[in-house]
Structures are given as C-alpha cells and as structure tokens.
C-alpha cells in the first residue's frame, strides 16, 4: 500500500461520504459546507492525477466562488436554524431506486468494457502549455471555445444582474 494509493482511497471515501451528506443533511448551511468538502476532495483528485491547473481552477472557482455564492443566497433566503422535514418515505424509496438502478447499469456497462489505454508519452500539461494551447488558432487550438465561453460568461453576468435587480 503506497502513499499514492492511500491518498486516492482517502479522497474517494471523502467524496462519497460528503456527497451523501450533502443530499441528506437536514440543515441547509451544513449541506453547503459538505458540498465544499466534496469540491475540495475533487481538487485533491486532480492534484493526484498531476493536473495542477485544473485543481487550482477547481479550488478557486468551485470551492471559492460557487460555494460562497450559494452560502450568500442561503443567508439571504433561509432561516439557518430551520430543519427540513424528512421527505416522504415513498418518495425517498422511488428516488433511491432510480439512482441505484442507474448506477448499477452504468457500473455494469463500464466494468465490462475494456478501455484502450494510450501508449504515447504524456505531454507536459503545465500552465505554459495550457495557456499556449488555449489561445492558439492552430491545429488543436482552443481560441474559439475560449471566446465563446467569455461571451457566455458576460451574458450570464448581465442576465444575473438584471434578474436580481429590484423592479421599480
């Protein structure tokens, strides 16, 4: 059992346990904090795979940005002391059946499939390589998706301001 294996199993256990707590916790602020733990463990998995930039984006944007946004909206719209009522048992059983059967189907499919692993030597995916390829217009460049995503973000920001603005 190497340290790498231990790290992987630790992150995996944290992701699954905190995901379950996120969807079952009856206090909304606790659910948001459990979601934060899930996102941080996911960033740990990216570090494990040696994708440092992806892990940094995960920490800064997801764990830093989206969770703070969610916590702010919780504070604006909910009473923190209030506990959710337990959902009806028939609803819980139906949802669990749907989720478990879908999960079983997916596991069955991909555990039987043999993946063809790449044999080429891995490229360095450090910050320089990512930045160059993200803005390159050559083959394998991602300049167009980058511009499209910028316009989408701008549109979403303007839309969010207009929707949340108080009417006259």
């Amino acid at each position, binding site marked *: 059992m190497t340290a790498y294996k231990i790290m*992987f199993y630790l992150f995996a256990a944290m992701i699954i346990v905190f995901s379950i707590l996120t969807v079952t916790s009856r206090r909304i602020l606790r659910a948001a904090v459990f979601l934060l733990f899930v996102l941080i463990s996911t960033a740990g998995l990216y570090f494990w795979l040696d994708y440092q930039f992806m892990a940094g984006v995960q920490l800064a944007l997801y764990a830093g940005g*989206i969770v703070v946004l969610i916590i702010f*909206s919780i504070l604006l719209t909910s009473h923190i002391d209030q506990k959710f009522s337990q*959902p009806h048992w028939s609803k819980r059983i139906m949802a669990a059946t749907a989720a478990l059967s879908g999960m079983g189907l*997916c596991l069955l499919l991909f555990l039987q499939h043999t993946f063809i692993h790449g044999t080429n030597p891995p490229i360095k995916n450090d910050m320089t390589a990512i930045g160059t390829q993200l803005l390159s217009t050559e083959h394998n460049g991602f300049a167009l998706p980058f511009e499209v995503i910028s316009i989408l973000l701008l549109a979403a920001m303007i839309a969010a301001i207009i929707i949340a603005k108080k009417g006259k």
Partner: protein
Amino acid sequence: MERYGIPLEGFLVISTAMFFIGIYGFLVRKNLITMLMSIELILNSVNINFVAFNSYLFPENMQGNFFALIVVAIAAAEASVAIALIINIYRRFSNIEVENIDEMKY
C-alpha cells in the same frame, strides 16, 4: 495500465457514485438551493470523468482538460443565473420551496 496501482475504473466508480447521489438529491430535495447543490454535484462528477479519461487514455492530448475547464466556466454561469432567479423568486413568494411556486402552473 494502472497509475500508482489505481486503474481508470477507480475514477469511474467515484464519478458514477457522485453523479447518482446528485440525481437522488435532485429528486428528493424540495428547496431550490439544495437542488442547485445537487446539480453542482452532477457537473463535478462529469468533470472527474473528463480529466481521468484524458489522463489515462489520451495522455498526449489536452482535450479532456479543456473540456473540464469549459464545464467549470459554464457551471459558474449557471450558478450565478440560478441564484439570481432564486433571489427574485424569494422576493415574490417569500420562500423557495418548489411546491409553493405554482403560479404559472396550468
């Protein structure tokens, strides 16, 4: 091929579990913000898949990495618009339970 003794399937099992936990939460929860959290779980599990496939199957490319980056950007846009909608709904109905928001129901 394994990396440090972990096969690709390890990552796929984690992301599948996370995806369907998100589905369960989306079906069971009634509060709009907790439903949004379930959607974040689903998007996050898809990201793990992209990065793991990129790392194990196509190590000479970076497509999976860029796809994951774009998914994160879209998740941020989606969360900001959704939260703006939730705040607006709260102003009109004074709560954000899905069962009480039925004004447009036919």
